[in-house]
Every structure is written in structure tokens, then in C-alpha cells.
């Protein structure tokens, strides 16, 4: 048994992401003195906070061998529900509770079709991506709802603990909780087994349906929370809140090394991917590279993330062949 050396550790996907991240931060820091300031980094996070929060729970969904395409539409539906009931005269506090409940209901509805009816999550959540978005647009048309209480608008911006606003604290809390769930809890262990080999889990007495249902309900709830945070940050609600976010979110998770086939991946990988994506976008923005080009660069990074294991295996084969011939 050989010990894991520094090189071995770098050979993992997380190690590679870490290198890329360090490189990005160095480049960015060299190009502009403002980059490494606390306020710039927090600002970076703030601009994408809803996506990165949902990326955390999406990590669990994909490790479980499923996918949830409806997250962004649930964000939209929760935000518009919030705006609509608020406009109807209910207090903002209760409106938040109702919006979160809507998220749970959406998640439970997905869970029913996936866990009990056995329909592939790709199909169910694709349908719900359309349906939930439809409801959102019916509730609040393109006018938008504004004039929320001041405390609500400040939720998204005002620092409440040191320099951190509420949304970032939620992110850190969720990060720690999900890290512990995946690394230490029985639930997390079962999650990996189901993603890795569902039949083995079932034959071992694991309640596969219940775990899948829990994950989709959690995904609905957290998406709803993200939707409300989005409304608070921009100070208004429209039917098109979060359109297309699901693709960015899934991109981050896959870039973080979570296998689309389930069973492998870590929260650490997702967090590294989040930092890379944010820093890449920020760096490119500072270097005056347009948004479309930034998106293109991300796409290439994603393809790389899928190809790295293949390239590494090919490299190892080549290495063995070379050694075999000379030795």
C-alpha cells in the first residue's frame, strides 16, 4: 500500500480544481488591486448567491443518481407566490412562510412521480420546469411587484454578521450541514449507495423511495428559499425570476466532479467549482471580456471536467506501454 503523496492528491479532480482556482485568483489579483478585497469577494458571491445555494442541494440530487431541472422554476414560483400574497394584503412574514410551503409542495409533487411512480426525474422535472414556470407567470405577469417592506429589501444586502449578509450566512450554514450529511450521516451514506447501485441499496433494506423523496422535497424547499432571497436582493418580483438558472447550477455541480451517473462527488468539489466559476466570471469581466464569451469559457471547462478521467486513463495506459517496452 503506498501512501498518498502530494502528487496523488493533485491527481484527483478536487486537486485539479484547487490548482485552477489558485491560478485564477493569482491572475485576477495581479491584474487588479481591487480583486482580493473582502468587499469584492462578497460582492462576487452576492451576485450569484441564489444559484450557489441551490447548487449545494443539487449536489445531493445528482449524487443520488437523479436530476432536478425544475429548481429555477420553483424559485420563480416561490418568489411570485410571495409577491402575490403580499400584494393581496398578507404580511411579508407570512408571505415568506407560504412561499416556502409552495416550495415543499412542488418538491413533494416531483418526489411523488419520481419515487413512487418510478418516472425518470429527467422527464418529471423537465415537465415541471415548464409547469411551475407557467404558474409563476400567471400569478405575476410582466409588470412586476415592488414596494416590499424595507426590512425585506435589506435581507439581500445588509450585512448582519460582520461583513456577511443573511443570504451568505444561509449559504455557509447549508454548506456545513450538507457537508456533514454527506460525509458523516447514515442518510448521506445511503444517498451514495443509491446513486452507485440502486438495486444493492434496495436489497440491503434501504428505503430508497423515502430517501429520494426527501431529497426532492429538500430541493424544492431550498429552491423556494433561493427564490425569496432573489426577490429580496433585487427588491421586486417578476414571473421570469431565475429563468435558465438550472443550467448554470447543474454546470457548477458537474464541474465540481459530481458524476452525472450518480454515486460520486463531494460538497468540497461543488464549492471549489462555485469559487472557480465566480472568479472566472469576475476576472473576465474585469478584463472586459463579454458575458457570452465568459459562458463559452465555462462550457469548455465543463467538457474538460467530463474528459479529465478519460485523458488520465489514456495517459496511464500510454505510460504503462512505454514502461512495458523499455523494461
Amino acid at each position, binding site marked *: *500500500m503506498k501512501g498518498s503523496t502530494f502528487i496523488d492528491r493533485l491527481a484527483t479532480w478536487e486537486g485539479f480544481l484547487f490548482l485552477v482556482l489558485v491560478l485564477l485568483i493569482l491572475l485576477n489579483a495581479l491584474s487588479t488591486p481591487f480583486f482580493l478585497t473582502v468587499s469584492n469577494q462578497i460582492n462576487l458571491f452576492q451576485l450569484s448567491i441564489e444559484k450557489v445555494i441551490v447548487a449545494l442541494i443539487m449536489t445531493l440530487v445528482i449524487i443520488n443518481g437523479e436530476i432536478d431541472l425544475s429548481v429555477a422554476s420553483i424559485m420563480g414560483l416561490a418568489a411570485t407566490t410571495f409577491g402575490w400574497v403580499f400584494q393581496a394584503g398578507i404580511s411579508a412574514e407570512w408571505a415568506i412562510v407560504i412561499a416556502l410551503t409552495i416550495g415543499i409542495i412542488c418538491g413533494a409533487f416531483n418526489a411523488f412521480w419520481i419515487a413512487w411512480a418510478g418516472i425518470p426525474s429527467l422527464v418529471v422535472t423537465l415537465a415541471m420546469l415548464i409547469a411551475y414556470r407557467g404558474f409563476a407567470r400567471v400569478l405575476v405577469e410582466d409588470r412586476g411587484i415592488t414596494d416590499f417592506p424595507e426590512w425585506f429589501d435589506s435581507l439581500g444586502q445588509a450585512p448582519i454578521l460582520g461583513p456577511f449578509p443573511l443570504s451568505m450566512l444561509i449559504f455557509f450554514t447549508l454548506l456545513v450541514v450538507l457537508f456533514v450529511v454527506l460525509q*458523516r450521516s*447514515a442518510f448521506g451514506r445511503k444517498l451514495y*449507495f443509491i446513486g452507485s*447501485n440502486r438495486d*444493492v441499496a434496495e*436489497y440491503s*433494506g434501504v428505503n430508497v423511495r423515502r430517501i429520494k423523496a426527501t431529497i426532492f422535497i429538500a430541493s424544492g424547499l431550498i429552491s423556494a428559499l433561493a427564490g425569496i432571497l432573489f426577490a429580496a436582493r433585487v427588491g421586486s418580483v417578476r414571473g421570469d425570476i431565475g429563468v435558465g438558472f438550472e443550467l448554470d447550477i447543474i454546470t457548477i455541480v458537474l464541474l465540481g466532479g459530481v458524476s452525472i451517473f450518480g454515486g460520486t462527488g463531494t460538497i468540497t468539489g461543488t464549492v471549489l467549482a462555485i469559487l472557480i466559476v465566480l472568479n472566472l466570471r469576475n476576472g473576465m469581466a474585469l478584463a472586459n471580456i463579454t458575458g457570452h464569451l465568459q459562458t463559452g469559457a465555462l462550457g469548455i471547462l465543463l467538457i474538460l471536467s467530463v474528459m479529465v478521467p478519460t485523458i488520465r486513463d489514456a495517459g496511464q495506459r500510454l505510460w504503462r506501454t512505454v514502461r512495458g517496452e523499455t523494461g
Partner: protein
Amino acid sequence: MTAPVLEMREISKAFGNTRALDAFSISLEPGTIHALVGENGAGKSTLIKVMMGIHQPDAGSIVVDGREVTFRTTQEAQAAALAAIYQEPMVFPDLDVAENIFINHHARPAFVRWRALYDEASAVIKRLGVSVDPRRPAGSLTLAEQQTVEIARAISLDARVLIMDEPSASLSDHEVRRLFGIARALRAAGVAVLYISHRLEEVFEIADTVTVMRDGKHVSTRPIADITEERVVAEMVGRDMQGRFKRMPSAQTGDVLLRVEGLSRAGAFHDVSFTVRKGEILCFSGLVGAGRTDVALALFGIAPPDHGRIEIAGQPVTISSPAVAQRHGIAYVSEDRRKLGIAMAETVTANITLPMLDSYCGPLGLVDKRAESADADTFRERLDIRAADLNMPVGTLSGGNQQKVMLAKWLNTKPRLLLVDEPTRGIDIGAKAEVHRIIRDLAAQGVAIVIISSDLPEVLSLADRVIVMREGRFVGEFQGESATDESVMHLAVGAAGRGAA
């Protein structure tokens, strides 16, 4: 005797340490039906795969029409006029019959002439002496009709050698009749048919010649008239290893732990009744597909029965899921390690503790990793699992060690009743002996054990009692000593002759 169309000469093929084919020879003559028989694992499937270019032989030669050939792909075998049909027909369900028949015809014009296609298809089907509408989608046909389509496909390619691998396994009596009709029509047309079946009565009805193979070796080839069913069975099982798996004296057995009465599940098994005592090793013998695994899956809550009663320690129980089975102290070690047994990408420890994971958790649901490593370590010593690091993925271990991990996983649930399906499939002799030792130790500790095994020497060396299943039914039972290779095999293949009480 006419010149053979296909000869396999001294073919050898090994997978790792297993010699699947050992200098095996067979030759097929046009216009004959040649039966190939042998136990499960005798190497029949490997032989077909070598014939069809799926595997390449390590040694030996394939001769077609007197010329030596090599098949690197199935296409090359087909080009040499070889075709094979299998137990499960391979048709494209959404294409119609005619399209399925002509799917492999490459040299066709760019545009399909549908009328000609259907006419040709009808003609080919008619040659087989059956009627199937060439316009029906293949998915709407019965299994037997799909098989006919497969045969028609082979004929349309002018196959001169047709390999039929267990073609009757999922057919009704009436459909088997029709299949025989087709086989005879092919013989009359000069095709060499290689007919592989477990059912000896069929072999004796249809075949002209029979070849027996055992452990990858050729045992005998004789005209059917020169051999009896008794003799074939003896040659199938005849081993020179009588002393190697000596029966152990049966342990003291205790009270009845499991009582099953009139258990049935449509399409799988029918009216099954038996009991198992504490400390007893009961073996289910029979051929693959006889319904043995289905009975185990019913007891484990995977595929609950339609009818019947299950009692554990005198209490009637309903077992609706593996979790419920576990609560009753039932564990099932699957025959399919890769797909159902252990998750290869997960660690050895995680695999061992999975069924009992919740018992390693505190109130917060966090796993006590120290306790779980300690238990995994105990099993490493007790079962002699050779793994440098229990935190390595289980897929990095050898097959025998994976098998022990799978056993450890279920022993960790402290079962009262252990169902073990093919306990030693695909592992080497040394690991096999160790698995047998583990099973005997468990029985000595009072665990009731049901073993499903197609490995007759294994059954005979482990069992206190043997139940033989055929086609979903119990067809016989033997008390320890009274079971012999031949008596069990007779019942399993349904050969006429001695049956035992």
C-alpha cells in the same frame, strides 16, 4: 456420412484461472441435428461465443468446409453462414417482422421496395412451415413467434449452421412441437443444427447425434440410438473428484425456524412447501431458471408470493420488503454480486455495514465510524478477507474476497435464516473451501441455512437435505446421504427413471 460443414478442433479458452474450454472438439454435418448437453458451467455458452466470433479461442482451430478460418467478429461468422438463436429472442420490437428478418442484409438498394420485402419475408416464413404475418411489429409477437423470426432471419442469410441455445426454455409444450417442426424442416433442407438443451427428453426426441461436455472437455459423441438417458446423465456429472468434497456429518439440528406452505407466484414457482430447522443446511438443487431464486426472493420480500403461508419460528409473517425480511432475521446473499450484492465503488467497510447502518448511528443520525471499522475488522479476521485497507473500494478486491465481503455484510445482520444463492460462483477453489467452512460454522451456531446452488458437488458436500426443483415445482427431496450426483441430476433434468422420496 457427409463431410462436416463446421469443425471445432481442440478449442481451448480460459478466463483468468478458469478453463472454460479445454481442447474441445465437435463437428457438425449438414442435414443433421446435433445435440450438445452438459451441466451449468460445462462451457456450452463459451463454445457458442467462440463459434460466433464473440470470443477468440486461445488455441485450436475452426474449420468451415475444410478450410481453416478465424472469426474476429460476429459479422465474420455470419458471413461464413453461421447463425445462432438464443433463449431470449433478440428482435427489434418496434420494427415489423419483415424488417426484422432482413435487418442484416447490407447490400440492398437505397430505397426499400416494401412489396418485395413482404413477399420475400412470407416466402422465408413459409419455408419454416409456420404462419406469421410479416407486417406485424415484432414486439407484438409471442416469444415463440419471435424465435421463428430469428430463425427466419438466419435462413434468409442462407445459414448452413444454426446454433439453437436453449431454444425451448421459455416455450409451452405446443410451441416446442412447432419448434421441432422447424428444426426438422431445416434438417431436410441440409442445414446443420446444433441443439443445446437441458431437457433430455427433448434431446432424445429430436437429435440425431449427441455430444456430452463436462468442465470444458469433450466426453463423448454418439448417435442417439447408441446411448440411453441414464448414460448421458452419468456422463454429464461423472467426476473424478469423489473424495474432494466429502460430506461432513450433519450438525445437531434444532426446532423448525421456517415453515413455508403452498407458496406460489405466477410464472415463477408453484405450490412450494418446506421447512428449515435451526442449524440445518437445506439445498435447493435444479437447473438455472427452475424457480429456486424466485422462492428465495419471495422469502426476502423482493418479489412477494401470490399465495401461501410463511411462518418464522411458529409466527405467520408477511414479508413485503427486504427491510421487513431483515427484521425477521432473514438475510439473502445474492447470486449476482455485481448487480445486486455489493456496490463496487463504495468501500469495504461501508458495504459490510450498509444493512445495519442505522444501528451505528447516534440520535443525530451520524455514523460512528470507529464502531463500524471495528466490526469490519472483526469480519476481516473471521472470514479471512484479504484486503490491505478496508477503506478501499470493494471493487479493487479479488472475486473471492468480494464474495466474503458480501457474506460479511449479511452475517453482520446476525441472521436466523441465511439464504445463499450460488455461494461460490466464479471464485477459485481455495476461496470456495473457505466459504464452505464459513457456512458450516454458521449452521453449527444454529443458523438455519438455505443454499441455492447449481454446483452439484457443492450441494452434496454441504447439504443435510436436498430439494430438487424443476420448472417452478418441487420434484423431489433427498435426506443427506441418499442424494447422489445422478439421482439429483435425474430429477433436475426430468429424465425418466429413478426418483426418490
